[in-house]
């Protein structure tokens, strides 16, 4: 019972942190930098869940986060969830082959995950959307892949800290191992 209570607290806190991060991206960033593409901070949450949580927990929490994210934009919900599931599968496959604990891996993975997400989104848009993407916007996508890792370290430590507070045991204990 206590374990379930901590898990629910963890999920609520995770949603709150996601809202704070996404609000920063969609409101604070755009009011200061205008049309300059913002970092995909919300994607870092999915990456963290995929890397450091058990599969069922990760997918369940990712779906919950996707419900919240849907209200921050106009991306179709089904497409958003499908993108996240495919991204999860790819991250899982890569992690089984290359992985080392610590924030550096998370930073590198965040850059790759941003690029992979963009590719998945373009393909899924062409496959499933009634009105698919009409322009690739290469500059915006590359810029986002460069800028998103800058926010990876704070997100990593915040989510790790929240896990400790809510007594959630990560799948693989991350440490400060040097490359």
């Amino acid at each position: 019972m206590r374990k379930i209570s901590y898990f629910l607290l963890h999920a609520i806190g995770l949603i709150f942190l996601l809202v704070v991060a996404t609000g920063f991206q969609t409101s604070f960033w755009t009011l200061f930098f205008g049309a300059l593409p913002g970092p995909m901070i919300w994607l870092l949450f999915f990456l963290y869940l995929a890397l450091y949580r058990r599969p069922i927990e990760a997918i369940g929490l990712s779906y919950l986060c996707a419900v919240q994210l849907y209200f921050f934009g106009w991306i179709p919900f089904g497409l958003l969830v499908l993108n996240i599931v495919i991204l999860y599968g790819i991250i899982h496959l890569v992690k089984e082959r290359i992985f080392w604990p610590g924030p550096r891996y998370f930073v590198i993975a965040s850059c790759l995950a941003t690029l992979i997400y963009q590719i998945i989104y373009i393909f899924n848009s062409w496959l499933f959307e009634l009105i698919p993407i009409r322009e690739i916007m290469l500059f915006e996508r590359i810029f986002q892949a460069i800028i998103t890792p800058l926010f990876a370290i704070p997100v990593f430590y915040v989510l790790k800290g929240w896990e400790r507070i809510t007594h959630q045991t990560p799948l693989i204990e991350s440490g400060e191992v040097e490359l």
Partner: protein
Amino acid sequence: MNFVSLDLRKILLLIPIISLPLISINMQQMPRPSDWYGEPFALLASRTQSLYSWFSNEVRGTTSLYINLIDIKRDNFTLRGENAELRAQLATMTELKLENERLNQLFAFKQKTKMDLLAAKVIGRDLSADHATIMVDRGSNDGVKPMQAVMTIEGAVGYVFRVEPNTSRVMLITDRYSVVDGLVQRSRARGLVEGKSTDACLLKYVNKSADVVTGDLIVTSGLDGIFPKGLPIATVEIVNKKPYTVTLDVELKPVVNPNKVEELFIVRGANQVDLEEPKIPETAAPSPAEKNPEMSSSSAPKVEHQ
């Protein structure tokens, strides 16, 4: 859990995981009112964006004050020189200002009598760079409803598609899901204006024989029941006449840069409004500009009410 080596249990687990997004995509084809379970999430999103908007405005104000203090000495010297120059221009400007005020009063009066406008401020933009939507600080408490037009003085910006009590989400005309019924102002050729990217639109389904040239202004037709008739949407950038097709490929540049919009108007009851001037034959009656030379000034608003 190793997902590469599959067994029956994992397959049974994968079925609901994969089927949920596919079912969601399928259900998306059927428009329906927002569900009760989405409301707390929507409320949370809109409240957060309002809070960030307020916070960033405060931060921007404070930081700009300190930056200005650093530069104030240097600016003072420059401004003294400019002051002398500006005094000379003041006399000319006063005359133009008076003229502009008169025209603005005329415009405002006509606007008051014809259109029910609600001023709103942009407080957030879309999560994804692939979609062009914005959030504004007006909602159902202010009388905003879905499918109400959003505009600036220059022209059309988009339309409201999701309303919360204190905020609304607006689909910009540059979003690929946006469709606005449009007319070429000069030749009256009809087509649908669809979004293409962050700063471009397309005019689709225009007959190949239609008279469309670069620089033509595209205005709203009013037939979609969202926008008032005659509101500028975009100007024609490129016209492609491809062989073996029945329609033209027309690329447009919006008259309002949606990335720079900060304040805008929500139009309530737009379908009762016609913004286009009546077409009066030159021989039958003089134009308003001929009647009143002041109206032909460059400062006169281009959009006129009927």
